[in-house]
């Protein structure tokens, strides 16, 4: 009897929690739905004023009007077509640049941070504390703050207007080092001791441990990919040729009012810019969460 009772109250509790979440979800998702429907709207439809007040929500006309401004009148592919053929920005070039630079940064950051994290967690060396403080400082001083001197330094190196000018500075990350330090600490010391007793070199031990932490590698790579995908200031300073630019800059250009880009094209570009990161996350968010859970507590 008691069991059934608690199951019932459990169901009630779960329903109430779900209901409480609905308004949040609506607030978060409404603009996204609006964006997707915006792809198919003409400028005239897009700027239709939303004047639903002072009509009452009980009125059927209210809902009609709301639906009318929300949904497109027809599914016209014109806006997508204009974006894809590169009428406003060289879309495919820009997408490819963004992909290359984000993947490059993610792979580089994972490699560097994993090596450094391994050294912090498992090796002994002088001034470890000082190095660690430097890593913390790296987190605290955002790259954006010193974008201008970095930009002029990249010019000196001859990396201006090159994708490497974005990738190479993007591989150092304090967050990654701390993350991998924690990850390597979680692995029992005995594993590496066994490997060492068998005569493996330090680098061999490291490579062996890497195969154990692949969920962590995936998780950090994903986070870094997303952050790199969003980077705006440095690419804007460094990349000047249009076909070299990355997505956020192309988007900013589309949004610029003086360009008179149709709203539908802007919305199509926005939607496409969201797909890679969303897909990546949807595919591996379970692995990501469990590897975070292992690490975050203690």
């Amino acid at each position, binding site marked *: 009897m008691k069991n059934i009772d608690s199951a019932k109250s459990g169901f009630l509790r*779960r329903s109430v*929690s*779900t209901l*409480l979440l609905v308004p949040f*979800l609506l*607030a*978060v998702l*409404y*603009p*996204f739905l*609006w*964006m997707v429907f915006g792809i198919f709207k003409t400028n005239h439809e897009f700027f239709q*004023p939303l004047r*639903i*007040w002072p009509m009452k929500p009980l009125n059927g006309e209210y809902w009609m009007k709301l639906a009318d401004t929300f949904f497109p009148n027809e599914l016209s592919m014109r806006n997508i077509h204009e974006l894809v053929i590169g009428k406003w920005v060289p879309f495919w070039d820009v997408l490819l640049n963004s992909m290359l630079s984000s993947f490059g940064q993610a792979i580089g950051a994972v490699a560097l941070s994993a090596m*450094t994290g391994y*050294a*912090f967690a*498992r*090796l*002994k*060396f002088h001034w*470890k504390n000082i190095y660690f403080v430097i890593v*913390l*400082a790296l*987190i*605290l*001083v*955002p790259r954006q*703050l*010193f974008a*201008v*001197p970095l930009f*002029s*330094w990249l010019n000196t190196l001859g990396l201006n207007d090159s994708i490497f000018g974005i990738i*190479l*500075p993007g591989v*150092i990350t304090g*967050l990654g080092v701390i993350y991998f330090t924690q990850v390597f600490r979680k692995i029992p010391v005995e594993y590496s001791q066994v490997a*060492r007793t068998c005569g493996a070199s*330090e*680098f061999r031990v*490291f490579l062996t441990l890497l195969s154990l932490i692949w969920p962590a590698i995936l998780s950090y790579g994903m986070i870094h990919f997303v952050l790199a995908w969003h980077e*705006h*200031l440095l690419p804007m300073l460094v990349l000047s040729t249009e076909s070299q630019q990355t997505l*956020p800059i192309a*988007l900013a250009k589309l*949004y610029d009012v003086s360009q008179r880009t149709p709203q539908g094209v*802007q919305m199509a570009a926005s939607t496409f*810019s*969201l797909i890679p*990161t969303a897909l990546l996350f949807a595919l591996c*968010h379970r692995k990501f*969460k*469990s590897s*975070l859970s292992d*690490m*975050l*507590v*203690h």
Partner: protein
Amino acid sequence: MESRAQPVIKATGGVGWAPFIFLFPFLFFLSLFWVLPLLGGVKMSLESNGLGAVEFVGFKNYYALANDERYFKSICNSLIYTLASVVLIVPMSLWLAHLLQSTFRRLRPMLTFGLLLPALTPPSVLATLFLMVFHGREGLLNQLFIIPIGLAPINWLKDPNFILLGLVLQTVWRWTGFMTFFIMAGMEGIPKAYYEAAKLATSSRWDHFIHITLPQLRSVLIFISIYLLVDGFSLFSGAFILLGGSGGTADAGLLTISYVFQKTRFFEYGSAAAISVSLLPLMLLSLYTIILLRRRYI
């Protein structure tokens, strides 16, 4: 970090050159793309403005900053913006994480992903979508909430009283879901046995939350707060799209990075670098706080 003395055993590794081979790539990139630009920034801040031949001017740029009202305004705005976002996001994501934990198991991944979506979206896209919600009169916020309760429609992005609030709400919208995800990962890592033990003492969920969940989540919460603080200070893209790189009416939305960017637009590199360098003491102070926190709580 690992400051306690360890007995010297060969098996713990890190003898000879190994640590430096592991650290070298990171230190190489760190000095090339972080330390040098930082020093370059310090040097730049001591030089005159303009594009052509620059000359050494000593602390002139800093004296100019001391009399620059917009500089103090931008620092003040950034501080308010950053603190407000932390204060709003952390409790809200705690609550949302709790709600998500107590919804139906099958719905959970979908709901979480929905809340996460804004964090995966490039900030420039978010800003554009937000613009629609925050539009002068026809915006959703005005039509659904402000006008129906009998207030005059708020011109969110033009009225100096509301610009900063708009930026804060945008950050809340962007990061709350992501932080919820982190907190959920942290919650899943708490051993169930703790709760079962606590049930013997008290059945109050609130007590469980205060005495088990919150202390167990402290490293997650500290991590989130640091992340938000750094991100708040380096916000660029969102404000750039919403306010077109300006500070908005009466500079009410002028953030530090936007101000640095404005300076570079007029090629006032010396002043721009001086602003960046002047923030370093603030960063060092927070670095010191984090080190203290780590000693005491983590």
